[in-house]
């Protein structure tokens, strides 16, 4: 491969990356056991809307636990709640941003659904088992990620540009900051209870 061809290929690769970069980094939640389950997402982008996915997201209730514990979805997504336990389960939310919905009670093998229409951090509770809690965080953009146990996250395929990036965690106060994406972009967040 000639030197000119190699430089051309590298330049083309860099240009492609710049068009579809990512936001990666770490969320540190001070004072809690680990930094898992924080949701990092790009806030609403003025003038841009995103079509809700046709496919439903699924949250299970198994062994008296919501699985996953925290789910991030795009606004307009319908979430199906499956009961995999041999006991009755219920799902409701006390949060106004999802109309304080209550889906009733249903037995093993059945599921009920709710569509999250707008940006919201909804707490999900089960009236039958008060210790159960789960969360659905609705992002206005499809650019979101849920952190791993070490707090790391990657939001893929974020177009270059200037954004407000928000972070939410079940036990810490939410936060946000401006992030300019240019290819692979690092962003770190430190939040506390």
């Amino acid at each position, binding site marked *: 491969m000639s030197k000119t061809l190699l430089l051309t290929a590298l330049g083309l690769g860099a240009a492609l990356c710049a068009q579809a970069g990512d936001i990666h980094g770490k969320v540190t939640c001070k*004072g*809690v056991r680990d930094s898992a389950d924080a949701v990092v997402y790009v806030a609403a982008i003025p003038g841009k809307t995103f079509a809700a996915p046709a496919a439903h997201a699924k949250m299970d209730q198994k062994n008296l636990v919501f699985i996953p514990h925290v789910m991030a979805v795009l606004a307009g997504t319908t979430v199906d709640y499956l009961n995999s336990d041999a006991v009755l389960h219920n799902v409701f939310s*006390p949060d106004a941003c999802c109309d304080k919905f209550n889906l009733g009670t249903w037995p093993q093998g059945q599921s009920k659904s709710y569509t999250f229409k707008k940006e919201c951090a909804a*707490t999900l509770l089960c009236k039958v088992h008060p*210790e159960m*809690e789960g969360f659905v965080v609705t992002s206005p953009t499809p650019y979101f990620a849920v952190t791993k146990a070490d707090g790391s996250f990657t939001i893929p395929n974020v177009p270059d540009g200037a954004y407000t990036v928000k972070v939410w965690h079940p*036990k810490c106060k939410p936060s946000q900051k401006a992030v300019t994406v240019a290819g692979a972009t690092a962003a770190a967040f430190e939040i506390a209870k």
Partner: protein
Amino acid sequence: MNPSTPPRLRSLLHGLLLLALFLGLAAPASAFPIFARKYQTSCVTCHSVYPKLNPFGEAFRLNGYRMPKETEDLIKQKPVSLGSEAYKRVWPDAVWPNELPGNAPVAVNVKMANVYTSSTDASGGKTIVHNDFQFPQEVNLFAAGTLGEHMSFMAELTHAEGPDGGSGTEIEHARLGFESLFGPEHAFNVRMGKFAPNLYAGFQEMWLMTDNGVDSLFNYNPVGFKGGTGVITDGAGIVSLPARVRGIEVYGVLNHRFFYTFGFSNKIGPGSGVATNTGDGSTQGTPGNFGANNHKDIYLRLDYKFGGMGLDGDTEGVQMPPENWREKSFRIGVLALKGNGTNIDFIATDANGPILDPSDNPYHMQDTSYTRTGLFASWTYSDLNVFGVYLSGKDTLETRSADGLTLYATDDRTYKAYFVQADYVLAPPFHLSARYEKLTPGDTTVQPVKVSNYNFTYLAAANLKFMLEYNKSEQAGVGTNKSINTVIRAAF
């Protein structure tokens, strides 16, 4: 005892004396490895030598068994949720959420002692007991922990075995606490149940490194024909200062360094009375069960700590050494207690025993009003901690007929007591303590009681200690008691 004492009464008094001796052995022993498990930390995080608390341990205790500025990641045993936090938003449509400790919050203390005692009476007669193996002397079962952010609990069940093989079991503590209910953190806390009141923070038995408690403060009975005559037995002097109470207490720490507490309580203890007088000549209730009347004791204590760690664990602006028992501080406090023992009959005694009326019935007495006021001070300089209390007591004693109906005399009697104790950390495993106590009884015809107590403790492990303790108690005209106790205590 007076030679004319009727046999039935003599036998009753002997019984009460034995009961008091037994209960005296059941001294509170506070060491909670429950928290070592919960936080996965050593006992010496909170204790210089258990049960004596270091400054951090005192803050932990006053914070309702929570670390200063505690965060979730400090707690290694994940609690059991009794409801999602979000349920607070739907109350009262659901029960308020709370938590349980992750594991059964139970711990055990075992205490064994080899006891040598020597008693010399006023006439020089001597009684010596060599090497009495009191194995065990007592076993304590503890439960303690937190229930969510604003509740805590503590209970202690003690089983003690006396020198004669007799044994007994008692609930020594059982209380619930409600912390930081409103206002600034640590400012307003409430607890209720059976507990050692914060009135004695720093000098009640459950917070002392020594095996013997301060008898001159807690085991003096001020009720007597001419006032109290001295320390009768361990546990018998519940009218002086009640070591534990059944009550409701409010306490808090303000601005890191000001401590306050006040409470309302019944006293607890065997007493030396005979029964509760109903006022119509008949009696009811358990003999000696002091506190079974309509009146409550009230108490108050105010402290301020200069230097060292704040009472809530605050260290802002303070340079603390890495040795967590050390600091340079001075804490001073005033304390007061007021009560009313009307309708609780005691047998009128002097140094020789019960005083009989012309019909050979013992006079009865009631302590219709008593006040205790005291001053507490504690100075810590590096490895040395010197602390003490001066206490003044006043009792209004009514002398009555045996049926309680005839009032013969009302007298005000006063007594005073003080102690000073020095604890020194030779090295983390080796501790020394020396204490001197003096009690000047209300009965001016008897001599003061002087007590010396010396202790050497080897902390073999954070939860295992050996103590060698010498105690001498003397009262001119009454006699001298000496004891050497070799004690092993383990907490697990």
